[in-house]
């Protein structure tokens, strides 16, 4: 990739992987404002890193690394980007339909999702990252590349988290 990437190419990659940003922000941000701040910071960091994108990795690996690194280390931020200040007066990720986010057409599935997020919230930061990757059905190899762990270590950790998850959902 050349040193002056086009904003269009960046936006196209961002568009194709917007779900990752949303899921990571929802897993780590406590309030809606926190999540929007996280999405802004992730977008900024992705743009800054875009010229150094290593094509040996999939875009999803690259985006997961940055999004998770931003989300996990958000405690260190001195100040969130001020959403009241232009040009950040609107959200980067928006619902096409304002009611779509609260779509209740399948209440049971919504309940399961809420439980899954509640379970994620109980996990420590790094375990939460692994759990997100597991739910996204990433291979152990990709999880290892994102996390910087060996595949066998990922396997061990995932088995532990799965046991906890099973226990949690069997209690319900």
């Amino acid at each position: 990739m050349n040193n002056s990437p086009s904003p269009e190419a960046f936006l196209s990659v961002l568009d194709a992987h917007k779900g990752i940003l949303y899921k990571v922000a929802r897993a780590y941000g406590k309030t809606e404002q926190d999540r929007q701040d996280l999405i802004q910071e992730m977008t900024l960091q992705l743009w800054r890193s875009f010229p150094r994108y290593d094509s040996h990795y999939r875009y999803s690996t690259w985006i997961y690394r940055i999004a998770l690194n931003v989300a996990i280390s958000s405690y260190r931020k001195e100040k969130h980007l001020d959403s009241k200040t232009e040009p950040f007066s609107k959200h980067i990720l928006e619902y096409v339909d304002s009611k779509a986010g609260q779509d209740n057409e399948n209440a049971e599935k919504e309940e399961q999702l809420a439980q899954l997020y509640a379970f994620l919230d109980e996990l420590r930061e790094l375990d939460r990252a692994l759990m997100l990757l597991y739910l996204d059905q990433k291979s152990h190899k990709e999880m290892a590349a994102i996390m910087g762990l060996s595949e066998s270590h990922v396997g061990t950790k995932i088995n532990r988290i799965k046991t906890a998850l099973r226990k949690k959902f069997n209690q319900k």
Partner: protein
Amino acid sequence: MELQALQQTWSRYEEKLEQVLRINHQQAADIAQLKSHSLLGSMRPIKLFTLVAGVVWVLLLNALLIAGFSTFHPFFLVSMGIQSLLTTIAIFVYLYQLVLLQRMDLTQPIVSVQAKIARLQTSTLWVTRILFLQLPVWTTFYLNDAMIAQGSTGLWIFQIGITFLFLVAALWLFVNIRIENKEKRWFRLLFQGKEWTPLMQAMSLLEEVDSLTREAQKS
């Protein structure tokens, strides 16, 4: 419930997100235009004020020490010289940590990046330790020839006692302000409050990273 069913629920959720979410291209492009996010601009006003006040204090103090070098009493010169030196070191260490944090490569794997960030964040403890070392000089800077020549025994017992107490407290804090003591009551008292929350969170994350590293070595 089967884990596979949960994964399927998640997968359908992902499909739904694809449909209902859209990127606000204008907003994203505006963010993309923001090529440099200044270090000082990212700091909280109170921290920025403290930093600026520290720099101004050191500059004024140094100017005063240089201007009055031949007239000030050696106790004042040495005490304030030590104070200025320790404050300058603390400011440089703090700024260096901020610059390293700002330059962190977030495209690297999670565990290594988080370990680096948490270690840098917890090294803020060094700034506190250095600043506490100043304690004794605040009990010596005002000593002068008249006090030395005419001071009563009571005054000297009080003076030496206070300086000794501050010296012991400074050295004790310098040695004991360490992550290992983070669960101790005095440590929690010293570092309570919102300003210290990131430091406490960094210490917890560091524990998580270290435990992960130990597991990795065993497996």
